[in-house]
């Protein structure tokens, strides 16, 4: 580009963004897409002891309920950009071991958002609540392990 140094140049997508065009995933989802909602951990550190999704699965409109029992055992990283990525490969899609408030416990797909949320309320979880580790200094040499694996 000739003579571009020092000039203000509008981003390619600037006007689509600022005039409210459909540019985000939810804006362009085709008609009839399922809605996915996550059930999240209320505990900072816990282990799922029991999880019963049978009632949630029977709710009308619910297409799929997934727990840690349904996901591959391959760990991946949520960090970084392109391969090779040196961050720890420490995530499962869903894990029995919950490591923060909000960690996903179950994934629900339903025809409507309301159905998905209603299904989440029907999932019965027994948690073994563990001692949380809340900062890096406490984590040093702490017998409580957030990633025992």
């Amino acid at each position, binding site marked *: 580009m000739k003579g571009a140094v020092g000039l*203000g140049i*509008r*981003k390619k*997508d*600037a*006007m*689509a*963004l*600022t*005039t*409210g*065009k*459909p*540019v*985000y995933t939810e*804006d362009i989802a085709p008609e009839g897409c399922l809605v996915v909602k996550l059930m999240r951990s209320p505990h900072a550190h816990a282990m799922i002891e029991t999880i019963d999704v049978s009632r949630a699965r029977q709710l009308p409109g619910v297409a799929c309920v997934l727990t840690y029992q349904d996901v591959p055992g391959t760990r991946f990283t949520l960090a970084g950009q392109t391969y090779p990525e040196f961050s720890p490969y420490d995530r499962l899609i869903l894990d029995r071991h919950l490591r923060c408030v909000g960690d996903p416990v179950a994934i629900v797909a339903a025809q409507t958002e*309301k159905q998905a949320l209603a299904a989440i309320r029907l999932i019965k979880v027994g948690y073994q609540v563990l001692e949380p580790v809340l900062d890096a200094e406490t984590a040093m040499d702490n017998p409580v392990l957030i990633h025992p694996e």
Partner: protein
Amino acid sequence: MIIEFTLNGMKVAAQAEADDSLYQMLRSLHIASVKCGCETTNCGLCTVHMDGKAVLSCSVPAPRAAGHEIVTLEGLQEEAKALGGCLADEGAEQCGFCAPGLIMNVLALAKENPSATDAEIDAYLAGNLCRCSGYMSQRRAVRRYLAQVRGEVQA
């Protein structure tokens, strides 16, 4: 229930549940500009105009729109382009997710107080959160837009 109201100058009848928000009803009508950030009136993303006043559509029950005039960014494309151009030129749009709500609120400000000072701009836009481009560039863009509205500078 069926809710009849005016949307961007057109009479519409929308299907909604009693506990739906105006935000949900607008999205169900494929109004893509209206975004939901917090659902708790803290972020300003879902701002629309109801009878000419800026409201947070996540917290207006859908049935309350019955018989009222709702305007979204889809109905204010000329103004959106003018203000959006100012935002773009000041680098005040990055992910752009907060832009429609911000623009709806700035357009309300421009109508109420086109000579707003920086302090007045800041106070008026305190409820419009942005997580990437930041507030200084937005303020410069709003200043530039208000100067256009006052006829002091050309777009």
